[in-house]
């Protein structure tokens, strides 16, 4: 509760300061993100990949995207896990601090959107804490919550695939953070216009 007191004199990394300074204005940019993680516990698990797309003026901007694969050597080693597929593939990989830093620089003050976004935000916050940064300041929207609001459902959770089916979002056979982010982005566009959010 008094966290902010503890941190009041703390020196943050440069990128975090510049990120924090961007919140004077409200953004009209939405960043739709999805994470791939080792599990469902934000404190114990880590991010394996991040995918994100920006929505501006009711359109997904394919070029305004973020995609990163994290090495997570330490986590994998500590838990006796291997991720050979990742390691051997030719995709560009980065360490967690690098990836999170570029992600923070990418999102700026945009409104974050995701499927069960709370979890994504929580696990990113954990990573930020390890880097000596504060918590994400962005507003966050959850497509599942939007779906519940649209249909007056109280608290039943719906999976991303089911939502895609319900709203006729084309489902690709590939499965990655970027794919999920793209699907969520389309879902978000549809829900947004159905809920008449400007």
């Amino acid at each position, binding site marked *: 509760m008094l966290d902010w007191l503890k941190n009041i004199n703390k020196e943050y990394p440069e990128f975090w300061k510049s990120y924090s300074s961007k919140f004077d204005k409200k953004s009209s940019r939405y960043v739709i993100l999805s994470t791939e993680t080792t599990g469902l516990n934000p404190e114990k698990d880590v991010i394996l990949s991040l995918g994100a797309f920006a929505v501006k003026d*009711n359109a*997904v901007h*394919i070029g305004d*995207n973020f995609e990163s694969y994290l090495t997570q050597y330490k986590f994998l080693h500590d838990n006796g896990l291997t991720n050979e597929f990742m390691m051997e593939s030719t995709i560009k990989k980065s360490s967690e601090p690098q990836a999170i830093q570029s992600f923070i620089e990418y999102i700026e003050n945009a409104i974050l959107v995701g499927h069960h976004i709370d979890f994504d935000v929580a696990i990113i916050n954990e990573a930020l804490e390890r880097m000596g940064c504060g918590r994400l300041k962005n507003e966050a929207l959850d497509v599942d919550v939007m779906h519940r609001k649209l249909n007056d459902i109280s608290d039943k959770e719906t999976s991303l695939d089911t939502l895609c089916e319900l709203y006729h979002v084309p489902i690709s056979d590939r499965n990655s953070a*970027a794919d999920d982010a793209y699907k969520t982005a*389309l879902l978000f566009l549809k829900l947004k216009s159905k809920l008449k959010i400007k």
Partner: protein
Amino acid sequence: MNSIAEQIADFLKEYAPFNFLTFEELSNIATNIRVVNLEKNKSLFQINDALHDSFYVVAQGVINLSVIADAEETLLNKCAPGDIFGLRPFFAKNNYMMTAKAREESLVYAIPIATFRPFVANNSEVLNYLLESFAVNTRNPKDKENLIGKLISDNVFYSDQQSEMQYFQSLNYNTSPLVTNRNCSIKEVALLMTESLKDNALVVENSWPIGIVTDCDMRSKVATGRYELHTPITSIMSSPVITVVENISLAEAQLVMLKNNVTHLCVTQDGTDKSAIKGIISEHDLIAAQANNAGVLIKEIKRAQNPKELKQIRNRVTDLIQSSISKNIPLSHVFNITSEINLAIIKRSVELSILDSGSPPARFAWLSIGSQGRKEQLLRTDQDSIIVFEDVAPEKYRDVKDYFLRLGKKTTATLEKIGFDYCPNGHMGSNILWCKSLTDWIKQYDNWMNTPGENSNDLSSIFFDYEITFGEQKIEDAISDTIFKNAKNNALFYDFLGNDALRKNSPLTFFKNFNLEEDGPNKDKFDIKTKALMPLIDGARLFTLSFDIRGINNTFQRFKQLSLTDSKHAEIYLNCAEAFLTLSKFRTLEGLKNDNDGQFINLEELSKIDREKLKNALAPMRELEELIKSKFQLTQFS
């Protein structure tokens, strides 16, 4: 790194003009794409909107492109996934000349012109494709198949053929008329006309038309010797020329010709004789345009070689129906024409199957049942059919039945390709139950009619509406004989049919509101098929059977005939006949609007007047119900 851009590139590379580019180029383009979601009926751009900075590719769904001609919205094109549209910003500076609207929920890729332009400049194939796309005038559906991909015209649409079935259609005319100047002599002009095989020539001054010479002038003024061959053409030309605007419709052109008693109309830029010439419309063009009628279609059907051709023809029929209805041509007439065309299509499908699998080993009849049997199929609803073949020696029976089952499978598959869905209840000639010998069929009908209710699961009243499509007329007659023989004084059977007719839920609630669907995907819509049309259809069938009226399968005509036969209740029958037409019209319009079978009507989209009309059309049903109840003592099954 952007894996989605690669996926989009992967999608694009299947379609022209993107197939001319390398995958890398496409990935590059894809990173600049914006993905736009369009709700149903939302427009992307409208006529006269300022140009966007991008053109579009349909990713999912259907986008309708339309223009306004004769103060009416005319559909130019339906864009399916992979089609490009909105090319105007590439080539022109003025505003959009058409409206792009989502017919269903759709996704489109917006490709910025700035990104794409370098590829156009460096790649002549792409440029040519785009130019062709943009400039192509004829939207003849037949051409469409021949082109590399689908070209979506964006430019001049009025001389197109897109809806060639429409009476209020645009015209194809000669856009490079023969022109001469006032100094030419009669002889020179006559030579010119003969050379270019034209029956007319325009006399032009400052590129404005000042007169016209036709074969008729040559005959009446020159050949008769009234003018010498060397006199200037101006002495025999008709002046002033009757001029019209570019986007004139067939009907209008006809009126102008009749009014002015001329055979040629000059098309000019602004429709007066003080502007540049755009072309000439001759009487022949009008006749040619009108030749696209049902007769021609049937001829084309007879010549069609594969399901694809038949499908195209059926698509044009849909246009015909749509325009006929909007022009208030009596629906009974439309029913007749459409059913004849459908009949021809089914017949051709059977023929194609026979060509494929060899001549049949026995005589047979392909009967259409259900809505096509009643000649009431306007929309492409599901197909229902049965096969009856003549009795053969027992040892041959298996082979013969095998042959006809195969025939049934082939034909129904063809029809499915044309757009007639399979019957969900399997009432088709490809079903082992509904493909059998005449004796078996007679037994089947005997069973149904003498012991109704016992095996009622597979008794569907649609088996009593049938129409021979292909094969032996005698077989159909034999079936009719059986039915009417069994129907005579068969109280039990009428009891069953009567109850079947009355079982449907009433269309109006106690408070005279519409009885809407309570749940399911069509919640809050009105089921016009089951709640309004079926009771009328069932009623008409019941009465015609009981009055022994043969050979009339159409619900409308059945009611008309009933009003003559049973003149005591003529008024009720006539009301029902009218109501049936009104309701069918509602259903057809709904179906055309949504490209489905129109079973469910969204009342909120109807105007208040239409809602009242619909409600009034439901009134005669009550009287018919009462009549059924009083005529047939419905006790056994109620």
